[in-house]
């Protein structure tokens, strides 16, 4: 079953949508639909620990409590910081590098998962930059991982998609 990591903008749009279901605009609607679909299909959905802490402020909204029950915080696996600092060299912001590194070296509460399959983002500059540098990043990742022990040696880049691409 594929695993998904929600970028910050996707998580924010979902919470905004849940906060005002009658007045959603396109990004909120797209983000909400994707979350509903992932939940319906029983996929594993991850967000950052900080996102959970932010979203807890909105937990007076019953739908937000439901949202929190469907997502899992993602943890930093070993080598994540090293990979994030390498990613930064390819014009990624600190935040984007963290998301991409979590997608590659993040893990779950049981430490039995390496990276996620798909990062969902609404951030077009981020996804464009990822696409532009994909092959270089892949080469850099292979160079970094080949000397590592298992499971780190098997790390691969996640896919990155816009909610619109999943409709």
């Amino acid at each position: 079953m594929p695993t998904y990591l929600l970028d910050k903008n996707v998580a924010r749009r979902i919470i905004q949508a849940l906060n005002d279901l009658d007045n959603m605009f396109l990004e909120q609607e797209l983000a909400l639909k994707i979350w509903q679909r992932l939940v319906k299909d029983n996929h594993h959905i991850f967000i950052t620990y900080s996102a959970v802490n932010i979203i807890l402020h909105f937990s007076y909204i019953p739908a937000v409590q439901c949202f929190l029950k469907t997502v899992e915080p993602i943890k930093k696996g070993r080598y994540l910081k090293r990979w994030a600092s390498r990613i930064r060299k390819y014009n990624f912001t600190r935040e984007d590098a963290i998301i991409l590194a979590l997608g590659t070296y993040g893990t779950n509460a049981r430490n039995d998962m390496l990276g996620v399959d798909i990062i969902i983002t609404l951030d077009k500059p981020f996804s464009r930059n990822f696409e532009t540098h994909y092959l270089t990043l892949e080469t850099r990742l292979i160079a970094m991982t080949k000397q590592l022990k298992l499971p780190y040696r098997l790390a691969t880049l996640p896919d990155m998609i816009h909610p619109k691409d999943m409709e």
Partner: protein
Amino acid sequence: MAKFEVNGEYVHGDLPFLGGFTVKEYYALPDAEQERIWNEMYFAEFDDMPEVEIKPDAYISTR
């Protein structure tokens, strides 16, 4: 304390909320400003989190 309605739910508008703003102040902010607050907070504790060892037989996606 004044109550503030959000999507039919009542919360205290004067309660501290995100980014040093109260509930009422936060919802009055433009979207770009709310986004800035989220961006700041989204990774706030990231540097303090330790890296953990992942199990050798971990699930690895088939991408």
